[in-house]
């Protein structure tokens, strides 16, 4: 902090000193030249006018006075010397005063920076609640402080969401852990437990371990998606969707469910093909889980203006209106006891939304209770003949 203040002070003084020296020097030079240019020296002739006998006036030179130039010169020189002395003294004083004034002015100008530094120093990674809130005129420093505050706001939000996520994740992991521990404790303490009891305990523990594994897998996927940028290649969405739909045909058929695929060709978007595929796979897995034998799952992809849509429609039980916003939240599961049997993590739709938003798109749900559900992803399209336009994915969202 000190060095910039010193530098500003020295700079300020030097500039002022330089300017003052130039001005004083100019005055001095000009003055000295004008003094030399105009020699005031004149020759004075002292004489006597007298009237002669003839009546004529006669000038009789009695004395020739010496020229004053030497004297004048000496006086000029003295004046100039005096000027020089005063000027130097004034310049020196000016320099000292300017140093002092400069020091205070620089300090005053730099005070907001001091404040910014102090706030930045006080901020711990765990507490981002401090703000600079710089008062004063709307200048560059105020701008800097406001920018800093904005950055802190964003960081605060990001940290808070991270914290909440860790909190939720640990909560989700604690439940299966608690199940394991309680079952093992009870089984071990019960000296009358027979093989059937122990086997049942083992199955419960196994189920919980499976659930934790699934959860950890999905957590990792989610975290990777969160932190790594997605690829930004041209993707033929139609091909990607068709590929995923085909993978689901066999497991669906085993359940007596038909997957029907209506996908347009030439659906080009910029993004991450595997990620989009995963989003579609999550939607299909959801659809398949709620579908009963004899029903159909429709997978559609097409273009609407500048947008590509991907639709997965099931004929399952649908989702009640009050749950429609919640289903995209992390760890939300409709029927907890049922979803536990299926080892669901509650992150599937969250991941779908994350991927859609990473592509600058959205995912919406259209559903009525007992009338099936349609999930629709919309992402921006690029023209088929220009599939190489770069697009910056805004992963901040």
């Amino acid at each position, binding site marked *: 902090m000190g060095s910039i203040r010193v530098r500003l002070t020295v700079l300020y003084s030097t500039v002022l000193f330089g300017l003052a020296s130039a001005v004083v020097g100019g005055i001095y030079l000009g003055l000295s030249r004008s003094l030399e240019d105009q020699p005031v020296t004149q020759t004075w002739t002292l004489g006597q006018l007298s009237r002669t006998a003839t009546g004529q006036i006669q000038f009789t030179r009695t004395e020739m006075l010496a020229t004053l130039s030497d004297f004048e010169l000496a006086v000029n020189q003295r004046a100039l010397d005096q000027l020089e002395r005063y000027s130097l003294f004034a310049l020196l004083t000016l320099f000292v005063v300017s140093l002092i004034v400069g020091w205070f002015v620089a300090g005053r100008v730099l005070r907001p920076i001091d404040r910014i530094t102090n706030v930045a120093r006080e901020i711990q990674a765990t507490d981002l609640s401090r703000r600079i809130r710089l008062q004063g005129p709307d200048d560059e420093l105020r701008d800097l402080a406001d920018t800093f505050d904005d950055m802190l706001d964003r960081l605060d939000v990001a940290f808070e969401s991270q914290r909440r996520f860790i909190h939720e994740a640990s909560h989700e992991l604690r439940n299966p852990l608690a199940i394991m521990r309680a079952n093992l404790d*009870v089984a071990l303490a019960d000296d009358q437990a027979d093989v059937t009891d122990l086997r049942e305990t083992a199955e419960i523990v196994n189920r919980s371990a499976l659930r934790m594994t699934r959860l950890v897998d999905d957590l990792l996927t989610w975290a990777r998606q969160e932190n790594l940028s997605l690829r930004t290649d041209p993707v033929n969405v139609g091909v990607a969707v068709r590929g995923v739909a085909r993978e689901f045909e066999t497991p669906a058929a085993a359940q007596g469910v038909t997957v029907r695929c209506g996908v347009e060709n030439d659906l080009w978007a910029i993004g991450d093909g595997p990620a989009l595929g995963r989003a579609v796979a999550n939607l299909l897995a959801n659809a398949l889980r709620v579908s009963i034998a004899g029903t159909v799952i429709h997978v559609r992809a097409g273009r609407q203006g500048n947008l590509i849509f991907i639709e997965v429609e099931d004929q399952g039980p649908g989702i009640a209106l009050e749950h429609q916003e919640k289903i995209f939240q992390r760890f939300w599961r409709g029927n907890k006891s049922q979803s536990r049997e299926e080892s669901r993590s509650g992150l599937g739709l969250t991941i779908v939304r994350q991927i859609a938003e990473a592509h600058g798109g959205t995912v919406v749900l259209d559903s009525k209770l007992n009338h099936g559900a349609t999930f629709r992803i919309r992402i921006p399209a690029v023209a088929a003949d220009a599939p190489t336009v770069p697009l910056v994915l805004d992963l901040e969202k």
Partner: protein
Amino acid sequence: MRVLVVDDEIDLADAVARGLRNGGYAVDVSYGGEDALEKAWIVPYDLIVLDLTMPDVDGLEVCARLRENPNVEEPPRVLMLTARDSLDDRVAGLDAGADDYLVKPFAFVELEARVRSLLRRDAGSTGATLTVGDIDLDTSRLVVKRAGATVELTTKELNLLRYFMTKPGVVVSQEELLDHVWDENADPFTNTVRVTVGTLRRKLTSEDGHSPIETVIGSGYRLIES
């Protein structure tokens, strides 16, 4: 002592219920807040082991609504179970009327110890051992001694004796015993209470033929204080 275990995690609720039953408690189980409230509305539970986060009605609300139950003289003790461990969560739980708080995952022995401690508050005793007259009941190790000699009891008889010992000298009716010592699977029309009280009395009878439990005709039974 009758306990209700409430958790939407079926495997956890069942395990806790099983462990408590092995410890001699009469245990009912609920897998949701709504169901728990319905049960607690009718049955005067001594203790409810209650999960905080449940999809239908959460633990805090169950806790609050239990206090409004007009059918029971005093609301049951509540031991709150939760995976949330922040200070705010604990405070909220205790404010809502939970008597104690246990964070998942927990060691079962700790849960047992807390259950014992909460039930002891009713009995007005401070240690793990209940004493009435010359009968000592160690609620931790489940050992009963009459005049220094160990008496072998089944878990049901233990639970029955424990209930009597929390109300020494008070006449306890058959219905009350059925409410507090038997779980919801007991058939109220059998003479199971009479039979169990009979065997307990026989086991506790001293050599001189003196029994600590007496029948009060027309009202029930009483544990003699000294």
